């Protein structure tokens, strides 16, 4: 602790004196210099001034092909899908590109906010696609592919034309056309440091009044009765003992019930069942990101697939391997890279009825 204080003090003094800090010799043997190769492998961030951006380029057309193969199953062919993540594209106009402010952000009645309505910097798009996309195989795109996918996205919002080639050379120019480039403010009190010179005072100012503070309080908003069990039986979500128990929301509320008579405590849950190996593989290969057992998520449920293709393990294995589109809805399924054995196990399980 005292050593820690000393380090802080030393730092403060050095900062005060205007010196760059000297390298510490207080902890010999801890840490080693990073090699250039190591830094290059991990230092992937791209700042708004494009520091960190690797050289390269990609066209809108190349981006469209990549998009349909690797991105559309989560984001829709036009970046408009709201099935897995919030829509990326939509809600901006050519006028917004001129002003740098998205008009729909002022409208209280506009239903949603897409990424392109909010993001002010192209660097952010490039950086995030490069580090975290595609969602199930992050960091698998080469720099030129990231340029291409970014170009395609920007073309969908009319930020760049359909024949555009995005590169490290022209990205700064493209940034000047971002629809919401003027839509950000740091004039607030909610940054913990002093780096942005925001405002000194919080924007809400309640006072700790103690007596007769307001006229009678009226309930202005509460959940409707039909939502009573929407989060499951609340009796199961409270401890079995205590000064209160959980409300049994599996039954309609009895308004005449006197206090204490409402709930019957549930029994403890049975132990977890042994997981089927096919189910484990479906989890491992991220199939469960888009498919669930009995409900449609992005793709059809496993039980619906089983019902449609009983006994057709080979067909299903082929579909898993090569992907597909149009059978169950507009969102395509990408090709899967799982091993033959794994695909066979999953296909057999589906063909045999997808029983849990």
């Amino acid at each position: 602790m005292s050593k820690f204080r000393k380090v802080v003090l030393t730092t403060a003094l050095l900062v005060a004196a205007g010196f760059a800090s000297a390298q510490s010799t207080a902890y010999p043997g801890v840490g080693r210099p990073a090699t250039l190769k190591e830094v290059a492998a991990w230092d992937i961030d791209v700042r708004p001034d494009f520091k960190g951006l690797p050289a390269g380029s990609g066209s809108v057309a190349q981006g469209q092909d990549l998009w349909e193969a690797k991105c559309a199953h989560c984001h829709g062919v036009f970046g408009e899908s709201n099935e897995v993540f919030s829509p990326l594209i939509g809600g901006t106009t050519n006028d917004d590109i001129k002003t740098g402010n998205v008009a729909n952000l002022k409208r209280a009645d506009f239903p949603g906010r897409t990424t392109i309505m909010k993001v002010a910097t192209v660097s952010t798009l490039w950086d995030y696609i490069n580090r975290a996309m595609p969602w199930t195989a992050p960091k698998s795109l080469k720099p030129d592919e990231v340029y291409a996918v970014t170009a395609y996205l920007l073309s969908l919002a009319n930020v760049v034309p359909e024949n555009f080639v995005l590169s490290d050379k022209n990205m700064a120019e493209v940034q000047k056309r971002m629809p919401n480039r003027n839509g950000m403010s740091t004039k607030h009190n909610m940054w913990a440091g002093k780096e942005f010179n925001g405002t000194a005072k919080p924007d809400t100012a309640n006072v700790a009044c103690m007596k007769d503070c307001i006229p009678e309080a009226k309930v202005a908003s509460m959940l409707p009765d039909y939502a009573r069990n929407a989060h499951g039986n609340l009796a199961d979500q409270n401890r079995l003992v205590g000064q209160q128990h959980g409300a049994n929301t599996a039954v309609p509320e009895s308004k005449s019930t006197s206090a204490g008579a409402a709930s019957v405590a549930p029994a403890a849950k049975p132990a977890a069942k042994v997981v089927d190996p096919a189910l484990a593989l479906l989890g491992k290969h991220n199939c469960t990101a888009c498919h669930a057992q009995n409900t449609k998520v992005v793709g059809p449920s496993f039980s619906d697939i089983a019902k449609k293709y009983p006994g057709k393990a080979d067909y299903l294995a082929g579909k898993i391997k090569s992907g597909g589109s149009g059978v169950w809805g507009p969102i395509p399924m990408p090709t899967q890279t799982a091993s033959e054995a794994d695909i066979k196990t999953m296909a057999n399980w589906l063909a045999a009825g997808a029983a849990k």
Partner: protein
Amino acid sequence: MQSGRVQKAPENFLDRDGIRTVIAESKTGRRSFIRSAFAAAAAGAAAPMALGQGNPVPTEGGDPHILNLPEHATGLGQGVAANNGYGVPSKFESNVQRRQSPGLTQTTQASVSFAPLQSLFGIVTPSGLHFERHHQGWWDIDPSKHRFMINGMVKTPKVFTMDEIMRLPSVSRFHFIECGANTAVEWGNVAVPTVQYTHGMVSCSEFTGVPLITLLEIAGADFKNAKFILAEGGDGSSMTRTIPMSLILSGEVLVAYGQNGEMLRPENGYPLRLIVPGIQGVSWVKYLRRIEVGDMPYAAKDEAVHYMDLMPDGQHRQYTNIQECKSVVTTPSGGQVLLDKGFYNITGLAWSGRGKVKKVDVSVDGGRNWRQARLETPVLSKALTRFNIDWVWDGKPAIIQSRATDETGFVQPTYKHLRAARGTRSIYHNNAIQSWLVQENGEVKNVQVS
């Protein structure tokens, strides 16, 4: 249960309407319904703590749970280290779990699970109940292969192993972590039923680790010209966030491996995460692999697309990171049922990203009159603080609220205050006063008041 025998049900296990329903159902021949109703009652009677029906002296002159010595008093229990050497909670505590809010997200890998605030005591969140927020799924990373790098505006870019980080002088501190989106769904109106879903993206732990400034010192960081750092995670999303250098200079920011006396849990960033007291959880980067020292903010995805505050004029406040003073009553709270009239302990949690909680006031009449609650020790800076206050419920409807004030004098706002300043379309940083309506039947509902 043997067929043909029905165990005697405890008195009042069904209300009058319920009994009428059972009789009506029996007349229409739905015997399975009756069976299940009585089976539930029998299960309740068998469990040692079932109904919470008060504590009267039974007519037989004594409680069978006292008069008949139970198995656990007359038999041999289990041996030490019976659960693979790492204990688990009682089977009677299986209702105390973190949970997802149905319909909130489409996938479990980019999702949230909420901590069961309604069932926690004191200020520490058990590590296994700590809320989770993942962007691309969680991993259990081999600590012997994990590396931590510092680069950017430093004299020598450095690489550390876990062994090396754990050799350095460590500190342990209690801090709350709250997702910037905690309570987000309630900006416009009531959306979810319980405190788990309204406020369960806050947790508090004792974290153990090394002050980041120590590690930056070792790398020879340029403290004169550097203004920001970028923290980067090692998972699929490689989460990145800009952190103010001024916080790091204060010594508060930790590179942590310990949580509540054990190593971090995988869901919370094992083996290494950043601790940024007072700042929204997204900045506490998990699976921390790299710190870059720089002179400008990074506009990472989560600070350029999400975690911004939309003002009525269409401008977004960017780089909002502080979690302002906030509190919530956890008992009584939504989805609970008070068992009878009489004495209750109103209890809850308060916290502030700007320091210590100075006081908490509680109202049982929807904010008209307030009484000052007891703050239980410890009261720590940027940590959850437990408050309690006595209350005798007269059986009439009541609206319960809490209002925290922190050491800067900031008073937690009402929804009216918050909406006057920021409108209703923001998502993050909702720290408004929460209201719980206790109905005459004892059931507690989430409400907002005008």
